[in-house]
């Protein structure tokens, strides 16, 4: 039996074309599989306020911060603010998941021990308006009470609660990081007869001079609620907090060196306000060192 010539030509074309296709690898590139959090700000926190950045699961983080009590304005007699005493905070954090972390910190102001959990809830990777939102919830216990206070160390009045919503974005090709941190502190005055609360709007901006060095400013006005004294023996009232200084980022370390009018460190204390107003004569030296392990 003979096939018509037209069918032969068709078969020939099919085979040649097909063999040409088969002579190439059939491999197809796979899709990328890694889903990483969108990086808005690389640091987990500013000098005082949190960012929306969280630890990766299984990572550790350590912080030590000092606020020197003498002011810079005291001059040589106080070593320009470097003589003690200091308020200090140490904290350890752990990444429970890629967008969920837990922090345990302690300040020597009233021996305030806080446990805080931060979740990154939303992120948008956009060239024009990148955005990340996070929520931080914390519980604090103040256990170092003056002798005149007749109260057990774990009395319910010694506990405080803090909630902070955090929003971050960047501008200027990623060099200017901005943050808004509306915050609420429950029982913000633990020695008050009636339960107090304080609502504070934390704000900050950080400008990167280069990948290592930056400058920052934090301003946290109290919007509503208690802004009185924090410790027995203090007089007057608390004031809106201002910090400004330099930030240094290296592989795993973030350093903050700055001046501030607020010598209080843990969130339930810092958010109530500063012991003095933000005039330059009231500036104290402060530093924070963090290590991402």
């Amino acid at each position, binding site marked *: 039996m*003979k*096939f018509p*010539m037209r069918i*032969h*030509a068709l*078969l*020939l074309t099919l*085979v*040649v074309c*097909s*063999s040409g296709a*088969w*002579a190439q*690898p*059939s*491999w197809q*590139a*796979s899709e*990328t*599989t*890694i889903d*990483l959090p969108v*990086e808005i700000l*690389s640091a987990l926190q500013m000098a005082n306020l949190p960012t929306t950045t969280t*630890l*990766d699961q*299984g*990572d550790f983080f350590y912080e030590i911060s000092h606020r020197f009590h003498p002011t810079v304005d005291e001059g040589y007699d106080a070593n320009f603010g470097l003589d003690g005493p200091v308020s200090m905070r140490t904290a350890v954090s752990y*990444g429970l998941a890629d967008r969920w972390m837990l922090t345990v910190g302690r300040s020597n102001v009233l021996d305030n021990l806080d446990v805080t959990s931060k979740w990154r809830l939303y992120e948008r*990777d956009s060239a024009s308006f990148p955005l990340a939102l996070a929520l931080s919830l914390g519980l604090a216990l103040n256990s170092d009470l003056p002798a005149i206070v007749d109260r057990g160390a774990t009395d319910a009045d010694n506990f405080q609660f803090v909630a902070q919503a955090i929003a971050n974005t960047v501008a200027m090709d990623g060099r200017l990081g901005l943050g808004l941190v509306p915050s609420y502190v429950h029982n913000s005055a633990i020695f008050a007869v009636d339960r107090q609360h304080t609502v504070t709007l934390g704000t900050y901006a950080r400008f990167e001079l280069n*990948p*290592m060095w930056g400058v920052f400013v934090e301003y946290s006005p109290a919007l509503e609620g208690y802004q009185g004294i924090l410790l027995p023996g203090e007089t007057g009232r608390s004031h809106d907090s201002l910090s400004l200084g330099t930030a*240094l980022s*290296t*592989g*795993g*370390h973030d350093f903050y060196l700055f001046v501030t009018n607020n010598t209080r460190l843990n969130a339930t204390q810092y958010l109530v306000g500063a012991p003095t107003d933000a005039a330059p004569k009231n500036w104290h030296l402060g530093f924070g060192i963090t290590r*991402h*392990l």
Partner: protein
Amino acid sequence: MIDTTSLLQRWSFLVCLVAITSTADAAEWHVDRKATNNVTFTSEVVTFSFEGTNDKVDGFLYWEGPGLFEGKPQLLFQVEVNAFGTGIGKRDSDMRDVLKADKHPLSTYKGTIIGHEAITDSSGVPTGQQHVRTRGTLGLAGVERSVDIDGIVAVGDSTATLQAEFNFRLAEFDIEAPSLAAFVKVSEQIDIAVDLSLKRVK
């Protein structure tokens, strides 16, 4: 006189035979993504050495003809830059920034085999492994550079392994060595070790 129809029939048969034979002899191996694969980089700096590992590797090894790496041998391997883990999330994040992983999420090596020879043991008996020399283009952080990379390939019936070690300098890819601490930088030279499992694709 020649019968043109008959001639066409014979040529058709021959072309089909050659085409089918050649395609039947093509060997194609894909990275077995369910098996163990590792790409490791090492940065050696005194007191600050570290390494990163990555198992998100894909790619293929391909040649035509019945002989090993015989005709048109080509290879392509790619790793997901975002999948490198050094054990410290912050360092991983910094590394992704340096490597511009958001814009260039894959690092790819695409090349061809330019030579190979069987590896023998001390008695001269072939071990079943081949020392393979490749030449191609390595892409990293959006920059491509021509490189020669040697490796060892062991081909079985349906599985194969591939090992390779090579190094490059960050400056070759326009990457500035980032700082590990205030005054300590990542090594300019990065050593790479590749250990892949492949499976034959029919």
